[in-house]
């Protein structure tokens, strides 16, 4: 088990270094950091001084090492457009995105797992067919369209829920949360649901497929033969064994939740990192893009590691087979 975790850690470091290298290349060859810090009309002497100050006259590996060192401390320099520290900008936006992504993930699990179980148990009946058709639609509908449809229905036509922003937030130091005010809850409903639809459909289909598989196994038959209550067979025995793939997919999808948050945040003008990133792409704001890239990569890597560790908690077989990979 230790060897496995160690190998995963090394892999994670390699991925981070690769992404860091891409970000570094962005800084080096796309947009001139000197220009962005001093402005167009600085003298040559000033430029040279700053170049030396920043270590830009050093050899390539030294510069890269310095970049990695700075990035590890969260220092990505200044935004080209907003003139503020990139770290400050991102820190300000991070809570909003995290809140949205977490809400969406929980929502997807809370709806997806029971509906998947339902679709598996009532296989072939009308209700189950309906659920499956809806889930196919959920996979085919692009996120932004779902958002627009929800806005059209709940904000424009019914006027029940607000369609943009986070509403009232409460600040704890630099951390802001909208989950402590009624207005904040109202504002998160539509974006969180929009964001969760794709994941929801995915989890639902996965749980159904796994349940159908598990229900055919001998131990479920034996559990029934022992006279156990249907409910305890389904939820105590069957569902438990579908959870390994569900955890994997949910974990891996947490990353794409953050990616899709870019779209959801644009539709609902949610003041998160994704909104910041889109603005950076439009304005060719390299430092913000690079910082966002590194942060998302970090989140991905950490989540993947956690998922791997969770395997050991969920699947006792892995604890016995030392050095086993995956599931």
């Amino acid at each position, binding site marked *: 088990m230790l060897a496995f975790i160690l190998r995963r850690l090394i892999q994670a470091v390699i991925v981070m270094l690769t992404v860091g290298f891409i970000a570094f290349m962005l800084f080096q060859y796309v947009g001139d950091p000197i220009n962005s810090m001093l402005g167009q009309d600085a003298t040559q002497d000033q430029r040279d001084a700053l170049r030396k100050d920043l270590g830009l006259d050093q050899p390539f590996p030294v510069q890269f090492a310095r970049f990695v060192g700075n990035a590890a401390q969260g220092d990505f320099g200044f935004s080209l457009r907003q003139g503020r520290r990139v770290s400050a900008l991102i820190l300000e936006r991070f809570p909003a995105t995290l809140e949205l992504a977490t809400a969406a993930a929980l929502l997807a699990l809370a709806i997806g797992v029971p509906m998947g179980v339902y679709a598996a148990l009532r296989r072939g009946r009308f209700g189950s067919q309906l659920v499956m058709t809806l889930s196919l639609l959920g996979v085919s509908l692009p996120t932004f369209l779902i958002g*627009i449809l929800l806005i*059209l229905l709940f904000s424009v036509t019914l006027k029940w829920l607000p369609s943009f922003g986070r509403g009232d937030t409460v600040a704890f130091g630099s951390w802001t949360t909208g989950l402590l005010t009624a207005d904040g809850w109202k504002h998160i409903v539509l974006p969180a649901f929009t964001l969760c639809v794709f994941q929801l459909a995915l989890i639902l289909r996965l749980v159904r497929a796994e349940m159908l598989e598990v229900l055919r196994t001998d131990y479920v038959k034996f559990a029934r033969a022992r006279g156990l209550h249907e409910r305890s067979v389904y939820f105590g025995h069957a569902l438990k064994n579908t959870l390994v793939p569900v955890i994997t997919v949910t974990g891996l999808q947490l990353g*794409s939740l953050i990616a899709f948050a870019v779209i959801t945040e644009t539709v609902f003008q949610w003041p998160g990192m994704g909104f910041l990133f*889109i603005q950076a792409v439009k304005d060719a704001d390299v430092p913000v*893009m690079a910082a966002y*890239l590194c942060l998302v990569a970090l989140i991905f890597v950490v989540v*993947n590691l956690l998922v791997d560790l969770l395997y050991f908690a969920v699947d006792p077989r892995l604890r016995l087979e030392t050095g086993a990979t995956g599931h």
Partner: protein
Amino acid sequence: MGSSTAPGRFARWLDSDIWHSFRTSPMAIVAALVAAICVFGSVFAPWVTPHDPFDLATLSLSDARLPPAWMEGGTTKYLLGTDDQGRDILSALFYGARLSLAVGLASVALSVVVGVALGLLSGFVGGHTDAFLMRLCDVMLSFPSILIALLINGVARALWPNAQDTLALGVLTLAIALPGWVHYARTVRGSTLVERNKDYVQAARVIGVAPLRIMFRHVLPNVMGPVLVLATIQVASSILTEATLSFLGVGVPPTSPSLGTLIRNGNDYLFSGDWWITIFPGVMLVLIALSVNLLGDWLRDALNPRLR
């Protein structure tokens, strides 16, 4: 391949398993019909659409934001209504779908070529090449494609701030294609590893066929099945990615709107109740994506001998 005359080949096609499975699957027929109508309408857009939405001479602002024909205030001149500049929605739909399909197909073609070539190479050569390519795939797969596409887009914008429209389209196609090749490379590599050790490949080797020839003439045809299925599904997801990028405002140039751009435009008028500017392009997009996805599903089942 022995069929000598054209009718013979056609008759054989009618008799084939694939055609039979197509004929007996109502879902596949409906999906194919919808897809065919969309493709036909888009390819021949200049001839089948009632108006030319980009001919400035025929546009008049007095026709702006007219509702569809069946609603109050709508006219039969514009069946699905008009947008904020007085463009006929129905015509703009097909012109938009034309661009969406073009970008989608081009990016899939690009990623198939790159992915299949690298996958064959990886599976056939093995060793360090294989290890390097597969690690590269791992890194690319760990990022959602939409982020990679956005990043490429942003970099291109930083490099060429005053890019021409054609360049923007090229960058967009590339941005969508680049995350896609990984899937083909992995699939093809997997099948190549299996095929490589089969007798027919060994036989070709023994009689001295050049490795490149073995790769492309002998192995390639046998690994194309899954690629075909994957490519069909990727067409749908490429079209959706293009629409998403255009909706976010980093896709096709606004002078030639795709479906995503149309939806983006309409989004500004959602609150004034002009839902048709947004909803019709959205419906068109979903119809295309859904029908292509269903066709892909059917193709996967039809080509899978285990399911027959």
